[in-house]
């Protein structure tokens, strides 16, 4: 079954949400998560011992979904699995927009009872045309409307990153860790076993969603590979899609079966499908985060020639290895650049051949900026990466670092070429965190190591090359 954008919008932008089965044991977390909703929240709970705690949160309670006095757009269900079919029947009768089951214990258990219940839910929902998110998941996060699945998630401000995930943890991590890295979510969904709405449905929805500009996907398996292929190919032709196909190893495939009851296709075929569709492939959470940051913050380019700025000699060698091993180039600069550097750049203990070894030339932010300006203007250079090294200074240099950030922002704003930072934290991890957030606010992506910076940028370049090929050849 395929769904219209309007139907999907109803559950992604709900005005009325009902929480079924909120409990003191879990500190009413499902109610608390949706308290910021710009709309109306109702609780459905028949256990009289649980009801006072719900009312204390200011949320009206009913003992049956049908009694809720208005139309419900989205239902959050956290009840024991045996009760799930009953709640679904109520939701169908109430004609809600959609229903999410946090409830687990279905096909992923590999038991007859789990399989039977999952088949029952699937059959009931399919017959009624009811949208089911999950089961065995966390559901939908839309910060702008205040729909969350965890109190840890930010709300109020929306973003441009859409995320779909069979894993609740990955969706939770991406929305919380991502926030700290400057990623702002438009809509995210954790969908577990995906019995009615599948990866392809969410991907199609986010592909059409005007607020979503970049998409990430954590996938363990798809029930209809052909449809997924068609949708991914169409969506990736319009927006960048980063795909983390988990469960690639035989051991991982076994884990995926017991996590979300997903069946494995050959890992090599998945590679081919992702490549064919022009999706950006990643294999770990950090890689997903890094790639989304690159897409959200770094100006895209299909060209590979790096200008690298390192604080010291050792750093200049290791940053060069990191970028070269991702297939990026570190060329010599133009004669003109060399003439300009020769006028002021001290080469006693330093070098400006590219990479730049800034050892004797990092005295002031202004001097660093001057070096960056020359590098950024060089015709042999397509993109610039800067090694922001917090570890070497013997004393805190807060003022210097502030000045340097200002110059980096100034450089970035004045240059048409991609620019990003690798932070060498050394032992100053707290400063590194603040620096990362400060740079993110200014729209500069930063990475915690040279290899991660290089890998993220390589993915951006490859994607831009794919885009160029599609635009040229069709």
């Amino acid at each position: 079954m395929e769904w219209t954008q309007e139907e999907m919008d109803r559950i992604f932008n709900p005005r009325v949400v009902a929480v079924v089965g909120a409990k003191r044991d879990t500190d009413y977390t499902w109610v608390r998560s949706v308290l910021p909703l710009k709309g109306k929240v109702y609780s459905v709970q028949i256990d009289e011992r649980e009801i006072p705690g719900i009312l204390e949160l200011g949320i009206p309670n009913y003992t049956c979904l049908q009694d809720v006095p208005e139309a419900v757009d989205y239902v959050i269900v956290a009840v024991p699995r045996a009760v799930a079919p009953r709640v679904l029947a109520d939701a169908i009768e109430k004609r809600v927009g959609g229903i999410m089951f946090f409830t687990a214990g279905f096909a992923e258990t590999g038991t007859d009872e789990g399989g039977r219940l999952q088949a029952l839910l699937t059959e009931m929902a399919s017959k009624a045309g009811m949208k089911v998110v999950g089961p065995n998941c966390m559901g939908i996060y839309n910060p702008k409307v205040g729909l969350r699945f965890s109190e840890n998630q930010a709300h109020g401000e929306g973003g441009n990153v859409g995320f779909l995930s069979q894993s609740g943890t990955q969706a939770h991590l991406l929305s919380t860790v991502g926030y700290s890295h400057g990623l702002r979510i438009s809509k995210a969904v954790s969908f577990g076993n995906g019995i009615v709405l599948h990866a392809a449905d969410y991907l199609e929805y986010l592909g059409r969603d005007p607020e979503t500009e970049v998409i990430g996907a954590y996938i363990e398996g798809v029930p209809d590979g052909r449809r997924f292929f068609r949708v991914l190919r169409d969506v990736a032709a319009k927006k960048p899609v980063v795909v983390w196909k988990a469960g690639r190893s035989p051991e991982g495939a076994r884990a995926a079966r017991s996590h979300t009851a997903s069946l494995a296709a050959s890992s090599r075929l998945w590679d081919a499908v992702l490549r064919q569709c022009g999706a950006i492939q990643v294999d770990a959470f950090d890689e997903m985060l890094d790639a989304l940051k690159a897409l959200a913050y770094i100006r895209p380019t299909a060209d590979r020639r790096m200008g690298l700025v390192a604080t010291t000699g050792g750093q200049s060698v290791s940053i060069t290895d990191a970028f070269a091993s991702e297939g990026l180039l570190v060329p010599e600069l133009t004669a003109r650049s060399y003439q300009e550097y020769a006028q002021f750049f001290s080469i006693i203990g330093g070098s400006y051949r590219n990479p730049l070894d800034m050892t004797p030339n990092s005295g002031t932010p202004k001097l660093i900026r001057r070096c960056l300006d020359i590098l950024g203007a060089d015709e042999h250079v397509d993109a610039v990466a800067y090694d922001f090294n917090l570890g070497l200074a013997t004393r805190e240099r807060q003022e210097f670092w502030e000045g340097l950030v200002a110059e980096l922002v100034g450089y970035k704003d004045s240059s048409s070429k991609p620019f990003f930072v690798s932070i060498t934290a050394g032992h100053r991890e707290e400063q590194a965190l603040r620096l990362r957030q400060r740079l993110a606010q200014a729209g500069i992506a930063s990475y915690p190591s040279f290899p991660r910076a290089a890998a993220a940028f390589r993915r951006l370049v490859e994607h831009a090359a794919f885009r160029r090929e599609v635009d040229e050849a069709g």
Partner: protein
Amino acid sequence: MVGVDVIARARKEGRTVLTEVESKELLREAGIPVVETSLARTSREALAHAERLGYPVVMKIVSPDILHQSDVGGVRLGVRSQAEARLAYRELLAAAARANPGAILHGVSVQRQAAPGVEVVVGMAKDPQFGPFLMFGLGGVLVEVLNDVAFRLVPLARRDARAMVREVKGYPLLAGHRGQPPVDTVALEQALLALSRFAEAHPEIRELDLNPVLAYPQGVLAVDARVVLEGA
């Protein structure tokens, strides 16, 4: 619709595996360059085919019951004359009878021995989740030992065919290695695209192997082929 006769005949005989001659006929109709291969039912026909195609020729047993002809001595390479062709015909029939006395024999195939080229392998198979896909690799050790192959789902766009050919690690061998002229990668890509269209038009085909396909500086030529149909 190409190949309807060949497929209908196999179906009528209750076969899902097409013979080499049938497979080649089907693929030639699909627009894939295939070495001309003629079926001889008698020694006299074999000689006539060989004369027409020009020596040296390759002769093989054609039997739906003998799929791996070389395993049973069912292949003769470099047959250079009428006398050799006559002898080969007799020996092939004897080998077939030894290997499988009850086998149905269609006869002996005769094809011109192709000039040496870079060997590549092209195939189509189906994945339970993703459906039909194509495979491309370099022949011999690279595909068998190193599994150096590229996959794409059907249907292929032009850029997919291009990417497949360039994705294999052995690509430098195609691009011209140690002073060898580069092979005709455009013709390779066209063969992949033709095969993709063919697979799309024929969902009744389960599996297909072109092994080897010889790639030349100009053109490509499939010299062996095997097509398997879905169960009826």
